[in-house]
């Protein structure tokens, strides 16, 4: 297992956002997390990345206990994180954003080469000198994705990677994820059921801070508990 959580809890002022989650992820797996707003996905995500400390429980990453490690230490272990709202260096150009990520893991010259290659991969060469703060939302998503992938992380956590993208951009994201499938391990939080259906192998459904179901997409869609709890609003489109 590349990632395991053991009875993970997080409470905010007596309210449990995450209640006793046991989660296992194999190397090379692409796992989607779904659930209604407030189901605990983002809190779980933030605990995995060290942004929030769990109230109790344990997180094991690559066989090491990372429960109380800060975000930068977890990132250095080979974890790339795309946050729900694109988190870029707005005052820096697209090229500089990518370079900031690349220069942490490689020398200057290979980093510059990697930046050029990544610009092409994410179709942003024409915007290389544009300030990240001036980009459209879809482009910002791509730049953030590029920043994560350029450092070659083993585990990639993507929080709503397709949000705000055009249909064409969503297609390209799906193609990119399918291309990287097996080479890296992914956890993807997403609401767009079309998107999930195109990429998901296994889906974990969160509900009220707990794991409701963990199964293939087809089985999840058929599950009555899931339909009652979450897919009522998304079920039609998923089917």
């Amino acid at each position, binding site marked *: 297992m590349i990632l395991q959580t053991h009875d993970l809890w997080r409470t905010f002022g007596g309210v449990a956002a995450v209640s006793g989650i046991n989660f296992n992820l194999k190397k090379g797996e692409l796992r989607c997390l779904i659930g209604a707003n407030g189901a605990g996905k983002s809190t779980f995500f933030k605990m995995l*990345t060290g*942004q929030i400390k769990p109230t109790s429980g344990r997180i094991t990453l690559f066989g090491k206990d990372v429960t109380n490690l*800060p*975000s*930068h*230490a977890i*990132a*250095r272990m080979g974890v790339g*994180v795309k*946050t729900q709202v694109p*988190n*870029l*260096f*707005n*005052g*820096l*150009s697209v*090229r*500089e954003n990518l*370079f*900031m*990520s690349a*220069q*942490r*893991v490689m020398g*200057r010259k290979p980093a*510059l080469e990697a*930046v050029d290659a990544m610009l092409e991969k994410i179709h942003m060469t024409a915007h*290389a*000198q544009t300030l990240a703060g001036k980009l459209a939302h879809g482009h910002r998503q791509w730049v953030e994705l590029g*920043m994560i992938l350029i*450092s070659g992380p083993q585990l990639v956590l993507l929080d709503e990677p397709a949000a705000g993208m055009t249909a064409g951009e969503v297609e390209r994201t799906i193609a990119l994820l399918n291309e990287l499938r097996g080479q890296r391990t992914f956890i993807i939080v997403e609401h767009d059921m079309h998107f999930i259906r195109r990429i998901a192998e296994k889906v974990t459904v969160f509900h009220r801070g707990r794991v409701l179901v963990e199964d293939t997409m087809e089985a999840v869609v058929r599950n009555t508990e899931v339909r009652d709890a979450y897919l009522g609003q998304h079920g039609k489109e998923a089917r």
Partner: protein
Amino acid sequence: MCEVKSPGFWWAAIVALALVFGIPLFAETYTLYTLTVFAIMAVLALSLGLVWGVGGILALGQSAFFGIGAYVYALIAVNMGDSTWALAASVLMPVCVAALLGYFTFFGRISDVYFAVISLTIPLILLSLINSASGPAYQFGKAHLGGYNGIPGVPPLNNPFDLSDVLGFDGMYYASALVLVAVYLVLRILVRSRFGRVVAAVRENELRAELLGYDVRYYKLGVFCIGAAIAGLAGALYAAWGASVGPTAFSLSFSAQIVIWVLLGGMGTLLGPILGCFVVQALSTWLGSASGVSPEIALGLLFIAAVLLVPSGIVPSIQQHLRRRRPAGLVSKETP
């Protein structure tokens, strides 16, 4: 591209040195005397320009490090009669204080606003302490803290190998101006280095920098300590220039003045704080000599006008204007 390999760096160095050595050919002794203190204050402005403008850390109490540097220089130079060790200690002591303060605030994850307030309390505490340090208990060897009156008779800078060879007005001008040029050029290199880029990235988005694997606490601490060292150096030069130090170095109005220099000149640039400092200092000097005009009111009005007309500061506004006028074909493919 590495900063020292860029033509812009060398052009800046040549122009700066030409100014430093060219001005004395035309200027009178009094002008040089005034320019010396402008240069010293510009070094102080650069320290906040780095910490706040580049690093995004609003250190409202940057004057604390200036004052510490000045007092440490005065105490050691008066006792030893030699400026060499005094100068070194005036740089080191503010770094130690900054490291201590920075450790508890940055590693304690104190938010930016709280940090600004905490940093402002440091010079105010020191002001209160120094003001009350006038009794015989505050005698340190040959030097006495002197309370409200400060320490008089501070020795000037001297040749490290010949204590009798001390700097006069001209020598002090060259020393201060060259220190300003050196600090400016070193900071240019620092800002374009890997460390400087990460510092700027942390200013832009701390969470993203953290999620990329940078320990932002060390970068913030590092830039804060470098800023303190520069401010301490400026303080020592000020004490050597004026032959005295007083508690006004820790005053609230002086702390605010440094912020105004940086804001007026332009955040995020190194030339901006220097220019802002020179403009405000020159105006203060001129208004001080002109009768019937209150310098404080005039400077206040200037500051309000500047905020309304050039909100990003003088230098960034000029840069934006030049960028708009530049033909599209001349826009270079900059490398980080």
